[in-house]
């Protein structure tokens, strides 16, 4: 049985004649211990799928199951203990007036956990920051360090599932490599399941086992990373995305089509 099962997910924003149908009938399964990628261009609905899964957007229809339990619109503490999220922008996702210590302690307090002090220092070591960072404010950290804190905050509740929304797109490539390595190591150590949203096919290929390509709210195609690496996508949209990801090519630019 898959750990995560999303069936016929639909998300609409707005009302009446200004309705935006952001996600249209999206279905996919993610097995335990797998990394599943959602890739697409801006406006394809990939982040909206993740936000509906995380409970940040309560306005959806369809079914989202985790471990066989169907999720409601409003999620309780047991859900957040199992599923945590890391956001794209580490500058925006950390409270500017809270120290790292407070950022990491707060989820523990909410969930009534014991040994908060040990948990905070352990998780800082796990994300490669160490105790010297514990009483700093976010503005005293670099972008990569902030993203490590955001990952630590997601991990401190010891969840099974991490939802990752473009976790490295705001970072330099050398820092991106460090964060991707960190995520891979944590996944192995803790047996995590990842759902990774990215616009970058090479990041998806590096991290994932399987991926779904999204365009205009729909899943265009689901494929394994081996198929992606072998450049064997079935759909024209995916082939174009792949070609554009390989770098600039004047003749390819002339062939670009629009798929919406």
């Amino acid at each position, binding site marked *: 049985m898959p750990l995560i099962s999303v069936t016929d997910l639909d998300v609409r924003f707005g009302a009446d004649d200004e309705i935006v149908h952001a996600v249209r009938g999206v279905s996919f399964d993610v097995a335990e211990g797998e990394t599943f990628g959602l890739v697409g261009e*801006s406006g394809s609905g990939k982040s909206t799928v993740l936000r509906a899964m995380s409970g940040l957007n309560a306005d959806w229809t369809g079914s989202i199951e985790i471990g066989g339990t169907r999720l409601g619109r409003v999620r309780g503490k047991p859900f957040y203990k199992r599923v945590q999220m890391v956001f794209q922008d580490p500058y925006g996702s950390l409270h500017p007036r809270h120290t790292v210590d407070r950022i990491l302690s707060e989820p523990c307090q909410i969930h009534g956990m014991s040994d908060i002090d040990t948990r905070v220092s352990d998780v800082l070591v796990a994300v490669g920051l160490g105790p010297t960072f514990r009483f700093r404010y976010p503005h005293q950290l670099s*972008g990569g360090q902030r993203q490590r804190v955001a990952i630590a905050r997601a991990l401190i509740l010891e969840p099974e599932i991490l939802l990752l929304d473009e976790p490295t797109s705001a970072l330099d490539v050398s820092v*991106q*490599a460090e964060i991707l390595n960190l995520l891979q190591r944590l996944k192995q150590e803790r047996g995590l399941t990842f759902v990774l949203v990215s616009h970058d096919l090479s990041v998806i290929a590096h991290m994932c086992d399987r991926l779904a390509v999204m365009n205009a709210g729909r899943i265009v195609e689901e494929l394994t990373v081996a198929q992606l690496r072998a450049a064997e996508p079935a759909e024209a949209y995916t082939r174009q*995305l792949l070609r*554009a990801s390989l*770098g*600039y090519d004047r003749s390819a*630019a002339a062939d670009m089509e629009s798929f919406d």
Partner: protein
Amino acid sequence: MSGATGAKDGALLTVEDLSVRFHTRTGIVDAVRNISFSVGREKVGIVGESGSGKTMTGRSVLRLIRPPGEITAKRMEFDGHDLLTLTEKQMRDIRGDRVSMVMQDPKYSLNPVMTIGEQIAEAYRVHTGASFRDAKVRAAEMLAAVKIRDPERVLSLYPHEVSGGMGQRIMIAMMLIPDPDLMIADEPTSALDVTVQMQVLAIIDDLVTQRGMGLMFISHDLNLVASFCDRVIIMYAGQIVETCKANELDQAQHPYTRGLLNSLPRLDRKPGPLPVLERQESWKTEPGVDAYFK
């Protein structure tokens, strides 16, 4: 094309020993340190990570560094004009008309209280003295050229009503209208989807190959620069650490460049831990290299 014929070596822009310094409360920050390069009628990529000084290099060519920032150079010459000694008024004739700059963030570079159409038309009228009606027509043509659907509608929108990617294309359209000799593009396509990026780059590419425009392409994306540009300048800590032909970037020698290339996840490489860049203090103290157009 006006002005002198340029330097003997065919370079449009020649910069020698450029430094940019900021005097701050905590001391002097050397954003750019003694760099020398030139740009011909070609596509030159300037790559580096955040804080390497690539944006400051681009801005200092147009003297767009405000106090407490300070530019010093032995020589900074564009097509026979000494950019170091021109008055502000003379600089205004160069900016936009002869040398244009596409800024990184359209949100801060477009005027929030003017419609897109008024802004593009204004730029065109200032540079050509055309009528408002002609300027509007030209503006719509340029928007269509940067692959904006329904340009007439977009002309009547305000900057907050367009997406980041569209804003970036509007900036590019605006900069292309005066037909510049040199374009400084600071991460012009980083906010765009890969397919749109490809189409926008094709427009810039055609201007370089067909009209002989020079291009300084500032980017953090090594793959893109390697495939798009003719020549690459790699910056680290305010210096040029290496320069090479773009198609030979994969054979780069400097450990910093190698480290950056290796840290990229690739579609054609088996996954496994990515090599992490180990920075060495000596990269900052070793003298940089020159990157002249030959």
